[in-house]
């Protein structure tokens, strides 16, 4: 009946980025935005004394390009928009009823953004049918718990990619009855996410995920 909490380093509100409309009139997409939040988190950590991420200062560069090193901004500048747009192209986000959608199997192509900028690597794991798997939850949980690093997760039914910064769990013993009764240990598990909605809607969501995207310094 008591939750155990784990948090990634830094504040969830340090990357309050939001989607915007691309040149075709479609939303830029949550997949590319989630990677942007995560990459800029890493860069922000590198520039603010996180020894684990300190060597990876090139994750964000001047105006989102490939030039001089600067610390990733904590507001949505034109440079951040440039990063989102570049990753949107990398992960082949497409337009469907005005929304930017990205297949989970294309999400790993965000590594193209990293190439030439930083030695940071990324890994993705997913269920193509949008079914939540305990193993995927554990990838994201381990990133937060063991490395203090947020992770991209997938919520709803293939519907949204937020970035998980926190993880909470508790176990309870309950009695279940169907024909006969038995006692069972059950678990409540939640991720605290940055939804990528400009800082709005950041909240606890059920920790059932069909996608886990991690970055490693």
């Amino acid at each position, binding site marked *: *009946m*008591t939750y155990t909490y784990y948090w990634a380093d830094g504040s969830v509100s340090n990357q309050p980025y939001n989607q915007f409309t691309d040149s075709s009139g479609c939303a830029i997409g949550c997949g590319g935005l989630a990677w942007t939040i995560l990459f800029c988190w890493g860069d922000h950590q590198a520039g603010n004394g996180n020894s684990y991420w300190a060597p990876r200062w090139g994750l964000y560069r001047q105006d989102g390009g490939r030039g001089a090193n600067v610390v990733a901004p904590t507001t949505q500048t034109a440079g951040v928009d440039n990063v989102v747009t570049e990753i949107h192209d990398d992960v082949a986000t497409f337009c469907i009823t005005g929304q930017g959608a990205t297949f989970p199997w294309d999400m790993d192509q965000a590594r193209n953004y990293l190439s030439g900028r930083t030695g940071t690597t990324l890994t993705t794991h997913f269920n193509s049918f949008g079914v939540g798997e305990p193993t995927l939850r554990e990838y994201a949980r381990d990133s937060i718990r063991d490395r203090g690093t947020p992770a991209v997760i997938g919520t*709803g039914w293939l519907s949204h990619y937020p970035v998980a910064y926190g993880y909470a769990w508790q176990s*309870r*013993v*309950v*009695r*279940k*009855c169907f*024909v*006969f*009764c*038995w*006692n069972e240990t*059950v678990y*409540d598990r939640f991720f605290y996410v940055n939804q990528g909605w400009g800082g709005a809607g950041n909240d606890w*969501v*059920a920790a*059932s995920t069909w996608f886990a995207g991690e970055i490693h310094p």
Partner: protein
Amino acid sequence: MKSWQDLKKAYTDSFKPLLADLAYQARSAWEIDDLVREFGEGIYTGQTMRVALLEREAAAEVSGEGAHLVEVRLVEGDNAAPSIEIAVADKALDQEVSFELHIVYGSGMREDLRFFAVSPTTRTNSKADSGLSIFEEQGQ
């Protein structure tokens, strides 16, 4: 919206997707809460559990068949919210035993929470209301 009535009428439809998403997110936790409400929450013998208090001024007592196994004490931290710690005696139980925690707050508000004590070695279905007694009575 022209009136409060119009707003109330439109509210459900307007917020239906958001409400459905919230219900989806909370589904698993609600199922567990329903089980706890119906049967109580289990505590293993030899272990403790804390129940957060809704007000700082509160009194607690325990009743039920398992009350003799249970001790409660008020826990007050400097910054943390006050809570009641329930400690269940370290004793092997043949079957789970139920008890209720009654909390009366300074404002007069009252909470009645159901629990059951259980050992890791307690056999499943050993309680009389388990339903398995039907088979036992019929010798199956």
